[in-house]
């Protein structure tokens, strides 16, 4: 038994903890919101799916989409989400934390550049959940988009 203990001690003494998160993708002044979106209901026809992104709005409700967009109050996922899939991962990098994201949603672009509508909101009991994003921290937010039961529109 003493040999076993000796081996265990040697092993434990020789080990570091191995890999650890390096926070490289959001160093120092950056943070992120990430998670998984699950889709249900009937997807819109392809002609009305010009773009699909997760958006975060800093000051909610906004006056209108155009004002909020040009004021830098809306954060987007970098690329469009895949269409017609049961679920998908996303992440939004937040450069200027700490701040509050007062409205997190999946938004569908159905026409021109500024024609967007919310199709799913990160909410509890019908109310949008406010996310307090700290510097260098990440927040997980998973939610569902039900195309057959769209949320109230913010714009």
């Amino acid at each position, binding site marked *: 038994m003493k*040999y*076993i203990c000796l*081996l*265990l001690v040697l*092993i*434990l003494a*020789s*080990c*570091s*903890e*191995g*890999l*650890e*998160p*390096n*926070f*490289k*993708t*959001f160093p120092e002044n950056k943070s992120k919101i*990430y998670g*998984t979106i699950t889709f249900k209901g009937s997807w819109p026809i392809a002609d009305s799916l010009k773009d699909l992104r997760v958006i975060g709005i800093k000051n909610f409700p906004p006056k209108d989409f155009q004002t909020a967009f040009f004021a830098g109050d809306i954060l987007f*996922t970098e*690329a469009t*989400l*895949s269409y017609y*899939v*049961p*679920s*998908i*991962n*996303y*992440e939004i990098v937040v450069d200027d934390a700490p701040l509050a994201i007062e409205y997190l949603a999946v938004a569908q672009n159905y026409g021109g550049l500024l024609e967007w509508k919310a199709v799913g909101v990160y909410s509890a009991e019908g109310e949008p959940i406010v996310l307090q994003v700290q510097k260098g921290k*990440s927040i997980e937010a998973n939610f569902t988009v039900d195309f057959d039961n769209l949320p109230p529109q913010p714009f």
Partner: protein
Amino acid sequence: MKNLIYMCLLLLNSALVFGSAVEGYVIDEENRGVVGATIRIENTQKGTYVKAANGYFKIDKLEDQSFTIIVSSVGKETVRLENYPANQAKKIKLISKTVRTKSIDVFGKKSGSAMQEIPISIAAIFREDIAIRPNSDLAASLDIIPGLLVTDDQVSVRGSSGFSFGTGSRVGYMIDGIPMLSADLNDVKFDIIPMQEIETVEVIKGAGSALYGTSALGGIINMKTISRFESTLSVSQHLGLYTAPKYETWKISDYPRFESSTKLYFSQKELFSDLDFSIAGQYNKDESYRLFDEQRNYNISTTLQYRFGQGGLKFRMYGAESKNHDWVYWNSLDSATRPPAGNDNEVKLTSRKLGYYLSGNYLINDITINLKNSLLNTHFFNSLNEDDTDYRESDATAYFIASDVHAYLLDNLFLSGGSSFTLNDVNSFTYGKHNQKIFSLFSQIEYKLPEFILNFGLRADKESTDSISTKWQISPKLGVSYKLWDVDFRMSAGSGFRAAVIGEKFATANFQGFEVIANPNLGPEKSWSFEIGAKFEKTLAENMFYGVDISVFDNEMYDLIEPTVESGSGTQIIFKNLTRARILGAEAELRLGMKYFILSTGFTYLDSKNLDTDETLKYRNKWMSKSSIVSKWQDLSMALDYKYMSKPDAIDEILGQQVEDHDAYVNMHIVDLSLNYDFSSVALPVTISLAAKNLLDYYYTEMVGNLAPTRKIIFGLEYKVY
């Protein structure tokens, strides 16, 4: 040939001149002949081996009327008989030892050979090594062998492979001596064999194409299934749970993620007359420590074995299916337990395998004839539609037929020879419609004296893909073993080759951002392996022993096929004959038996170099160490395993364009602990087990962008119905 006949006649004539002979039957506890048992007349150079299935032996040309003889065999207690009379065929019973010495069956010989007699590096794990550790797959069980690295279904022996996207195994994989690599990717399918069926796993380290043909570039793995059937029925279940990771950003659930495995095994000795039967099955479900990485698989196999006077037949049929999420790499080190953002999480990869093999052997006039035939169909597809760019599908069948003959030409001269034919038929969305044929001829001769063994093998393989043939591949191998001062010295030199597989030549596929491009001009890769080694083992008392095995080796590799990321693209992968490589290394193994436990530890050092660029080969670990303590005290047994691997010195930097944190590697320290308690002594046929895989919850990567399994606690129960 004429000389050989003259020699036989001369020997026959000599036997007639001298009237005295020692003869008899060497049998085991079940009154079966012990083929391969050695009989020596003490204080002389005279001796022989048992060649006949009924155990008969004869040493003639003798003058005395009584002798002192020593009878020994692998795994049996040695017997010394004084005053053994001449010309009387007595029965000599050898009793099995319950010790560590094991018989193995390399080189297709019918009889087992002691490991120290074989002039190459070989490792073996046995049924009890597997049973004591509650693994749900065989790959994990192999991980205790020094010099071996098993990553997913890819096996690397002494650095033979780096990271090859799962295609083109450089290690031959066989079950009962029959090749079992898939026809399209030539990859290993570990799940085609339920674990309860395995009796022994033998691993030959170094090129072995002289005997086993293509793929045996870095080594061979041969699974031996149970051959001595008992009448038994057992069911076992284990349940594992992944503990939560230390880092918040890696947590994927508020609840533990589970893994479970259910195994069933039934066998019936002499179901009808000399017909033995077994059926085994296994179902595994793994929720995984990563998000969208759930895996399910099951397998079932049935075996019929028929024994008759001078031979036997074995038929085994099996099927397996796995359905897994199509996980390729992580999002980033920060979110190492999640697939990349934008990934379609619901894509699943289904892989089905169905096959059989039939093998037969027959002993006639001291000549053993073996016949083998097998079929392995593999079919994989993902759940996307055919018009999706990431759709992958392949249906491939490998047909194999072989015959070989083994005979003692003289008492100490053993000859093997044979031929085989393999047809790989691929009908695939991803690789197209192609077939590959490989025809082989091989021969080996072994000259054996009490202290000296010399063997030489030669194999010729002709490969053609569709209508394009490659040149004959000639693979020689020479091995010498010599016992001096109780040390078994060995030396071997042999060549290996691997024909480019259909998956490497014709792949046109997309997966998670990578695009694989076809290269029909891909040629075979070749190698030469050289090794010298020494093995020493000394028994001090019952269950007290020590032993050392040291080897130094050199693997020279030519035209190595490597997946190459096309510069500029960052994501286009093409397989090319690129590399002239050299892997120099040394391996040392120490075994120590101390009554209640056995300590074994192995160290492997590899210096791998791409000689074209003078850089270190990618994804090779310079240092490896594997240690185990196995202990048995009354009804309690324990296995403690420790694996260390240094992080690779070189990686593919260009993968960084696609895989976030592709360079996240650390030295690995992995500790596994298993405890088992057997209640059979209190008339309860139950064994319970408690185990921890990655006990220290150490975080590391073995594959690019893949966090290796985190700590898992396992509870197990086995019930042996009878």
